[in-house]
């Protein structure tokens, strides 16, 4: 057993002792499971391209005792249109002083999960229900043993929440290596609608491991729009897993921009459970330095007439590595499914690496499905064209890189937010010419 696993198991035992009875049992099972499995390794297929060996020797403090008083730059939270409900977590700890819930429409319950754990309400139980038993889900299991807070959102049937819910996860330098764990539960009743803007940010130098697990359930005809902006600090490791279940006619539209973290892993497991459900997932990972990002999607068509589309872009410069795994499963009986998956990648340096693995499994009839992955370089003719007009090479490269992935932002309906993300993307690219004064 390595130092990392031992450290986290010790912490898990403490958390378990302080847990209400209904939860203590779940935690114990999770802890024992993690003790048995340890960190995922190369033998676990879904972790083939992401090596966690660097974690093994780390002995992070679990939780940040001073998180409540850490100073964070609140200006960094400002996003267009995000002036309504906001929950802020710093180093995994809820900060009421930075958060605002305000007046929510009747039928909407939003708040930190911690408050719901003591009395074991159904919604809290649901958040801890998944077993995450499959190989490779060890970190999600660990999360069940350690997470004591997170976000809980319930939107009752038919309620339409206009203002986006802004969730902020900030990493602050704790002066030492830390690990934090959060767990979210999001449930939209039949016909309910909501928008979530999830933002990760942090300073360079903040050495930490964030581990997030999220359960999302959308009732019949519900609609969830999700925007994720990941600008975690470059010394942060971020592991997050989302499991979604979509009822009949429900729809989920997600746009993700992965720019930060030294090492990040994003797992999305989505089940189109009801007839005619629809999912549209887009995102781009734009990496440089020694950044490593691994995005793993699994979409399961479990009912007839469901539609899914995944568009993911990976861009790796310098010594960065972008990994993509996309699996579409069309189960027996899920006839008339429409599933499209595309992963396009851009390799900007001979030392960068791209790994992509699209998989399609079809067990139904009359299915329209397509998947494809490409890895390319910047087009030399385009580069020369821009340079011949006077654009310096580095700026020309950035312009073409921006062009390669910016269309994923078209999935954001609210224009000012889309523009803001475009600017964040541009700032992330070297010497990208600005819009200027």
């Amino acid at each position, binding site marked *: 057993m390595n130092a990392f696993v031992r450290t986290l198991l010790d912490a898990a035992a403490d958390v378990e002792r302080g847990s209400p009875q209904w939860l203590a049992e779940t935690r114990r099972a999770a802890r024992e499971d993690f003790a048995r499995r340890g960190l995922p390794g190369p033998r676990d297929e879904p972790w083939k391209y992401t090596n966690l060996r660097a974690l093994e020797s780390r002995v992070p403090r679990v939780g940040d005792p001073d998180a409540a008083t850490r100073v964070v730059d609140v200006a960094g939270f400002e996003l267009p249109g995000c002036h309504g409900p906001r929950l802020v977590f710093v180093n995994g700890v809820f900060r009421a002083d930075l958060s605002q819930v305000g007046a929510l429409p009747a039928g909407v319950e939003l708040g930190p999960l911690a408050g719901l754990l003591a009395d074991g309400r159904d919604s809290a139980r649901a958040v801890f229900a998944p077993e995450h038993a499959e190989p490779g889900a060890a970190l999600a299991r660990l999360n069940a043993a350690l997470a004591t807070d997170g976000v809980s959102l319930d939107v009752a049937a038919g309620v339409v929440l206009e203002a986006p819910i802004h969730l902020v996860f900030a990493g602050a330098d704790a002066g030492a290596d830390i690990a934090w764990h959060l767990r979210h539960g999001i449930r939209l009743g039949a016909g309910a609608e909501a928008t979530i803007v999830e933002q990760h940010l942090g300073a360079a130098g903040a050495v930490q491991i964030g581990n997030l697990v999220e359960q999302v359930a959308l009732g019949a005809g519900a609609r969830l729009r999700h925007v994720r902006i990941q600008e975690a600090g470059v010394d942060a490791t971020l592991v997050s897993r989302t499991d979604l279940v979509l009822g009949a006619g429900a729809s989920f539209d997600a746009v993700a921009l992965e720019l930060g973290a030294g090492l990040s892993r994003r797992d999305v497991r989505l089940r189109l459970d009801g007839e005619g459900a629809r999912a549209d997932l887009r995102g781009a990972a734009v990496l440089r330095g020694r950044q490593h990002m691994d995005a793993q999607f699994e979409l399961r068509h479990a009912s007839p007439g469901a539609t899914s589309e995944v568009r993911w872009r990976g861009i790796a410069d310098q010594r960065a590595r972008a990994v993509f795994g996309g699996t579409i499963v069309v189960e027996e009986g899920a006839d008339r499914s429409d599933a499209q998956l595309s992963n396009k990648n851009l390799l900007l340096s001979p030392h960068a690496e791209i790994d992509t693995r699209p998989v399609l499994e079809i067990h139904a009839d009359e299915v329209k499905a397509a998947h494809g992955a490409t890895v390319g370089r910047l087009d030399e003719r385009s580069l020369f064209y*821009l340079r011949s007009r006077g*654009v310096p090479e580095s700026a020309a490269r950035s312009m073409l890189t921006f062009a390669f992935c910016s269309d994923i932002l078209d999935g954001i309906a609210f224009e000012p937010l889309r523009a803001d993300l475009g600017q964040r993307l541009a700032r992330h690219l070297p010497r990208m*010419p600005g819009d200027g004064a």
Partner: protein
Amino acid sequence: MLKIDNLHVRVAGREILKGLSLEVAAGEVHAIMGPNGAGKSTLGNVLAGREGYEVTAGSVTYQGQDLLTLAPEARAAAGVFLAFQYPVEIPGVNNTYFLRAALNAQRKARGEAELDSMQFLKLVREKLRVLHVSDELLHRAVNEGFSGGEKKRNEIFQMAVLEPKLAILDETDSGLDIDALKLVAEGVNRLRDPARAFVVITHYQRLLDYIVPDRVHVLAEGRIVQSGDRDLALKLEQQGYAWLAERKLAGAA
């Protein structure tokens, strides 16, 4: 302004330019004509600094400096402009954004103040107006989905905005109807100036009715094989390039 001396260029292992010499003085318009595959576009690309065009001998001096050592963007900042024979489509890069980035990068390199978006837009609208180009062009991605004629017009529009010192037009007239051709010619003529020079590569003497050249050269097999005044263009139009081969045979005999 431009002095090309005994230029030899290899592309993909093959020698394409084989001792090309050409001198262009400020204020002049030179036309270069010649059969397909003669090396006309190669010349344009070498002058603009495209990679993969290996100069094995000879020199190119532009405004007193060795042009061949400069990066493409530095050549642009020094005033060199190539209107491409086949302008590339660049989806996702907005035409206006690109052109402003280009102009400001050039200005910055020359130590001039950059234009803010208001100043730039004013300049662009002015140029659009005189070239009779629709401002719809500004909102589109660089050349994306443009017709052949629109692409050529966009090249001339960029030239008008960037105001180069030495403009090389590579078959900008090919595939244009007479109205579009007049627009291209007008774009060039408006920029004609004692401090500016043009190298106009063309297949058709038609363009030279509108852009009257000071000199006409015939480029064949990687060399300037004949130079003359406007009449040479008319002769080429009437007789084609066949006489070149005969002339060569005669020379060899």
